[in-house]
């Protein structure tokens, strides 16, 4: 049973590793579908909490996989999920960097760079849509998202952690019905 769970974790995250074009934000929608709907590892509420935790913690947002693995199967689950998500893409990147870095000016390299970028952006938008659907998103949610985006856009030097704390505070104030 436990072994089956570890194998299931690996089988979920390895394909996401190789499809996370544009980074971890691109696979939030997919991970949510697998972890919540398909495998029932976490509830929608827990998934949103884990997303918030993974964004507030240091390091890449893809550490979302680490905490899901940890929730499902403890330390071993965390290690398996982390390796499953980072090793395949890392090996691919290593190989591609080593083999193609001298061909950057070639037409195929440019087409590959420019062609993959819009797919990555589309996936991030899909991630926003599915996260918003999970949350109890009302007008205050849209206000916080918009406010945070405005700060990130126009005050790029503003500390990210500060914006996240601010978002938590505004939501707490809204919940107490000020």
């Amino acid at each position: 049973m436990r072994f089956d769970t570890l194998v299931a974790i690996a089988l979920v995250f390895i394909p996401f590793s190789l499809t996370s074009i544009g980074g971890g934000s691109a696979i939030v929608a997919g991970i949510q579908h697998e972890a919540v709907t398909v495998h029932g590892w976490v509830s929608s509420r827990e998934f949103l909490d884990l997303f918030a935790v993974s964004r507030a913690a240091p390091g890449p947002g893809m550490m979302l996989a680490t905490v899901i693995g940890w929730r499902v199967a403890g330390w071993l689950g965390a290690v398996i999920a982390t390796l499953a998500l980072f090793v395949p893409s890392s090996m691919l990147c290593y190989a591609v960097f080593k083999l193609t870095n001298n061909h950057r000016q070639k037409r195929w390299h440019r087409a590959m760079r420019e062609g993959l970028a819009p797919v990555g952006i589309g996936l991030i938008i899909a991630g926003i849509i599915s996260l918003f659907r999970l949350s109890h998103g009302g007008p205050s949610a849209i206000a916080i998202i918009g406010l945070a985006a405005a700060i990130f856009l126009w005050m790029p030097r503003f500390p990210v952690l500060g914006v996240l704390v601010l978002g938590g505070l505004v939501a707490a104030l809204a919940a107490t019905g000020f």
Partner: protein
Amino acid sequence: MPVSDLSHSLPPPRLRSLFLLCFKIGILSFGGGLTGWLYQGFVLQQRWIDEDDFASSLAISQMLPGANVVNLVICMGEQLRGPIGALSCVVGFLVGPFFAVIALCQVFDALAGFALLPAISDGVAFAAMGLLVVMCIHGLRRAMRFPPSVAIVVVTAFLVGVLEMPLIPVVLVLAPISVALSWRRA
């Protein structure tokens, strides 16, 4: 700035130095902006990597699957010290966040009785979604230069986000189409 001229004459860094720099950036990088940290560390402070090499490594890192910053430290590690350099960088970079994110999860659980916690967690998630919105705005601006790219963005977002189709088959179909469109444009 003659920064890039200087970097060529410096000896390659020791593996321990690579590991420690990546560890420091990994554990201190609360809430993103990691590319900026890496630029600061590898290019400006240590002068291990010159500006052009950094930019080209970044482009490859963004194009390929995987966390951009993880890919970036792999490229720089490989360039500086080969396979062992890449391994030192990636392990150094991820080991801190691995324990930090689990620790934060435990703090979160310890506070579970606190009535406002779900609201606060939602608020943090919404603010973090603002970060994603900004990435989309920048990406859409770049895509505007070539209208078919905008169509790819919209179709991808619609299929995966609105229709909730599984992500992997959608990417396997749309990515080759998008690359073919860019190929014909070039």
